[in-house]
């Protein structure tokens, strides 16, 4: 029984972490998704390292994301994470986590001079490929389906992004509502080929239904785009609200990543 409870706790912890780290792919911004599926956001690969400091564990997650544009309005992709967990008082585990596939379809586009407003629908399916039979588990052990709406208003002066999604989790895990808001501000003049330095301030939230409650992070970040094909980024998520049990709360999440345009 204790084992079941521990598995449930680790599964739930991973569910919360994966949702917090969801940024699939198509940044900028760093932690919130974007409705613009062009350039580095539609023709490249993305990987980033997430260093998660929790009260009862240290976790490292390195996802690699492969988006593929069928057209500028329709994208499919996959995300495969390497997960390493070192819980206090238990042996550490590492290996493949839960793999995801996703598709995005742009439903709205209103362009103006040096500005655009776009919206898309995103459907993500998570497969329980991570080992969930041992403690600590590397996966949630549950199939999950997420449907999200992603919007963004981007000008050459600033960008505002919003992502709202509902995640249906199987295997007895609670459903959750994801809400992310981001504000981006370029520090250098906008030119092409890009030489950009961007600042981001994001709010990344997750409300888990049932007794679990809410998690909300304040996430400042910085991003450097070096030419047409290369981007570096880093951000930190600091909890403003964390309703995890005492001893299981998150101290911070540090992300360091890159995106490389290959097509």
């Amino acid at each position, binding site marked *: 029984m204790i084992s079941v409870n521990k598995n449930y706790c680790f599964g739930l912890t991973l569910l919360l972490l994966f949702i917090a780290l969801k940024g699939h792919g198509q940044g*900028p911004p760093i932690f919130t998704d974007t409705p*613009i*599926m*062009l*350039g*580095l*956001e*539609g*023709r490249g690969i993305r990987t980033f390292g997430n260093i998660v400091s929790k009260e009862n564990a240290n976790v490292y997650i390195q996802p690699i994301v492969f988006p593929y544009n069928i057209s*500028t*309005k329709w994208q499919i992709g996959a995300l495969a994470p390497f997960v390493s967990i070192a819980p206090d008082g238990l042996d550490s585990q590492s290996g493949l986590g839960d793999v995801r596939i996703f598709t995005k379809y742009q439903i709205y*586009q209103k*362009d*103006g*001079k*040096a*500005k*655009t407003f776009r919206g898309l629908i995103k459907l993500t399916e998570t497969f329980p490929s991570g080992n969930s039979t041992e403690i600590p588990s590397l996966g949630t052990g549950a199939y999950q389906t997420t449907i999200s709406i992603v919007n963004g208003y*981007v*000008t*050459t002066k600033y*960008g505002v992004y919003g992502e709202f999604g509902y995640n249906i989790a199987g295997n007895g895990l609670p459903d959750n509502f994801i809400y992310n808001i981001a504000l981006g501000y370029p520090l250098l*003049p*906008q*030119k*092409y*080929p*890009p030489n*950009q330095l961007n600042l981001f301030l994001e709010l990344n939230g997750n409300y888990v239904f049932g007794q679990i409650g809410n998690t909300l992070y304040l996430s400042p970040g910085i991003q450097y*785009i070096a030419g*047409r*094909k290369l*981007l570096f980024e880093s951000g930190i998520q600091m909890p403003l609200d964390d309703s995890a049990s005492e001893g299981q709360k998150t101290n911070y999440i540090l992300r360091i990543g890159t995106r490389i*345009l290959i097509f």
Partner: protein
Amino acid sequence: MNKLLIILFIGLSVISGRAQDGLIELKGTIKIEVDGLSCPFCAYGLEKNLKKLEGVETIKIDVENAFVLLTIAEGKSVDEATIRENIKDAGFTPRAITKDNDG
């Protein structure tokens, strides 16, 4: 009389077909205003699509002022409708296409 009508019909069909296709041949340096061009990192596809056009020599994308300058090689021309189509395929909205006076 019948022959005259047939010739007239064929002639009008050809003229209206060309007008519908927007077959306007462009030469020299041309300026294309592009809406939705708000982020330099997403302009790669635009550059790539315009590079595909036969006869295009150079491409300059001005993100701040939202236009593209295309230089067409000497003795070559590019169809305006094709340019518009390639810009749409890159995820942007083409607006006015004019001869660049500075070019």
